[in-house]
């Protein structure tokens, strides 16, 4: 049992170590990397199945029980996120076989890719705040390398902004963790949930703000998102897709965890602020996208905009809102990453990411056009695709708490998203081929198409057979809004009773 909980971290780390030893043998590295990513996906699926049948799983490391040792906790949210990471890892590993050039592979692309996956899984599974910081740093350093690998000019320019913003965020996170430890004497998240109600509300709220900024930079919320559109379009498409899909969502996950389990002392203030942030993030991101004419830059600004919807679900702080935020997050990871991958195929045919230099792809490759439509219109929230249901749940949660202005903003932003997606459709797919551009005769390699088709099928499944996804989202929403089960699983019966007695649980 404990092996299963540790596997999503140990497996990719072991793979990375092995890949370092195989440095230079490209074919072996490629095979191992892809096979390992697929195996990790299988492990994640088993983990989620176990959590679904047995409830929250906990491992205490080194024979030290919580709160003294480090715990790994897999509740439904963590298990789902690990599974999503496994899916994205496999999809990107396959796509990368044709997208990442041999130079980058020789420079160490493969090991770093698996270190990144391990860091992301660690951040999802850990139940210890300082340990969360360590996993964040691990995924950061791997992402730094992947972002700048290849040493292109635009990569360096984007990379420096990414590195600067994230290093400042790490400093703030560590400061927050230090002060929180000083105030409570513990770092275990369940134990913190138990002890934070004893801390004066003012101090707890101040600490909450520090974490909001630190996690907020990593999640790219307004006004801390500037680094994302400056850097996410610069690396090869496979890396952009993994970053655009997974990495900012680790920040959102941290926000979800922190502002349901830990910082709930003054919900009116913290979550009220989150609601404002959500609105501005949505609007600013989508307006930024409207001004762009480059395929990947449009997508990068939309990442920011979509983060707003997830924060909106969190800000409502109801089971429905929280479940909706998670549903939205999962839908968005698939759709967004897929759009990046499709941009890569579009460039394979058209030779550019600039919309002005693209055209005629609908006539040239109808299948690619269909795949784009599925991902793009799901992102814009067209029924019955996954994005429609995701928006519907979050907006219904808004109706329940009567947050009319935010609901109105989110509907308006949905229209603008549609505008951006239509812009790409018209320029790259529908309009005639621009003069002086010849489309490459196809078809593009099947290894580029396979992950795109798989992700599009997932988007369709979440749209047409959404019932099981809803059930899961509902359970996650219930778990997040009442963390008694989490505390019980980590610290035991007596602690859970104290937790309820302190009146934190609703």
């Amino acid at each position, binding site marked *: 049992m404990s092996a299963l909980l540790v596997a999503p971290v140990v497996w990719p780390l072991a793979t990375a170590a092995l890949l370092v030893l195989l440095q230079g043998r490209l074919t072996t590295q490629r095979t191992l990397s892809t096979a390992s990513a697929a195996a990790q996906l299988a492990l994640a699926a088993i983990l989620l199945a176990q959590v679904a049948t047995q409830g929250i799983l906990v491992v205490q490391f080194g024979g030290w029980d919580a709160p003294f040792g480090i715990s790994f906790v897999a509740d439904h949210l963590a298990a789902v996120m690990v599974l999503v990471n496994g899916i994205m890892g496999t999809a990107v590993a396959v796509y990368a076989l044709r997208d990442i*050039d041999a130079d980058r592979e020789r420079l160490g692309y493969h090991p770093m890719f698996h270190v990144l996956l391990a860091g992301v899984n660690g951040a999802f599974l850990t139940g210890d705040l300082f340990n969360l910081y*360590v996993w964040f740093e691990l995924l*950061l350093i791997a992402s*730094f390398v992947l972002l700048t690998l290849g*040493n292109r000019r635009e990569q360096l*320019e984007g990379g*420096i902004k990414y590195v600067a913003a994230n290093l400042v965020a*790490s400093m703030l996170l560590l400061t927050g963790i*230090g002060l929180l430890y000083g105030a409570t004497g513990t770092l275990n998240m369940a134990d913190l949930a138990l002890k934070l109600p004893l801390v004066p509300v003012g101090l707890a709220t101040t600490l909450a703000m520090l974490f909001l900024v630190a996690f907020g930079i990593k999640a790219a919320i307004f006004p801390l998102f500037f680094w994302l559109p400056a850097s996410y379009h610069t690396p090869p498409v496979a890396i952009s897709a993994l970053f655009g899909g997974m990495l900012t969502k680790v920040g959102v996950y941290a926000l979800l965890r922190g502002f349901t389990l830990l910082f709930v002392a003054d919900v009116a203030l913290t979550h009220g602020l989150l609601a404002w942030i959500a609105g501005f993030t949505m609007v600013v991101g989508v307006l930024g996208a409207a001004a762009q004419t480059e395929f990947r830059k449009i997508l990068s600004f939309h990442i920011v905009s979509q983060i707003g919807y997830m924060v909106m679900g969190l800000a409502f702080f109801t089971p429905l809102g929280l479940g909706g935020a998670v549903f939205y997050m999962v839908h968005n990871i698939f759709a967004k990453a897929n759009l990046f991958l499709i941009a890569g195929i579009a460039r394979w045919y058209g030779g550019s990411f600039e919309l002005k230099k693209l055209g005629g792809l609908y006539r040239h490759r109808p299948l690619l056009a269909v795949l784009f439509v599925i991902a793009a219109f799901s992102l814009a929230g067209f029924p019955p695709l996954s994005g429609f249901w995701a928006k519907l749940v979050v907006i219904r949660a808004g109706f329940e708490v009567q947050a009319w202005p935010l609901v109105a903003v989110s509907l308006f932003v949905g229209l603008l998203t549609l505008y951006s997606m239509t812009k790409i459709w018209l320029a790259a797919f529908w309009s005639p081929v621009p003069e002086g551009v010849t489309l490459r005769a196809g078809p593009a390699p099947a290894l580029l198409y396979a992950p795109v088709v798989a992700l599009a099928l997932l988007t369709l499944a979440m749209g047409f057979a959404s019932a099981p996804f809803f059930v899961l989202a509902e359970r996650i929403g219930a778990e997040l809004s009442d963390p008694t089960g989490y505390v019980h699983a980590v610290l035991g019966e007596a602690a859970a009773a104290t937790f309820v007695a302190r009146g934190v649980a609703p």
Partner: protein
Amino acid sequence: MEAYLAVVVGAVFAGGFYLVMRRNLLRFVFGLILLSSGVNLLVFTVGRVSRGAPPIIPEGASAPVGEVANALPQALILTAIVIGFGLTVFAMVLLLRLYERLGTLRTDELQAHLASPRPVPGLPDEEAPA
């Protein structure tokens, strides 16, 4: 003792933030180094400081006797120092590459370069299609 250390932490943070907000990226990294030292000192301080009470369990006992020093912050700091070292070294190498490429580390000049990039011979600016 904690009060003095708190003042020192504040001063180090102030210096760090001052440097982080400078136009020169090298100063930015120096600021980060200062900040990370400040954070380490902060973690050390919040663990409460004591003298002459090593956290050693006497023979035959299963827990320390009486008040002993808190050993956890030191373990945390050790981890943070190692992580901070790695990140700083990476940031320095990135700056070196940027300087080699563009000949400046001033953010305003980098911004101007961004507006009108000039190609560097022998080094590709963008990806060639796969």
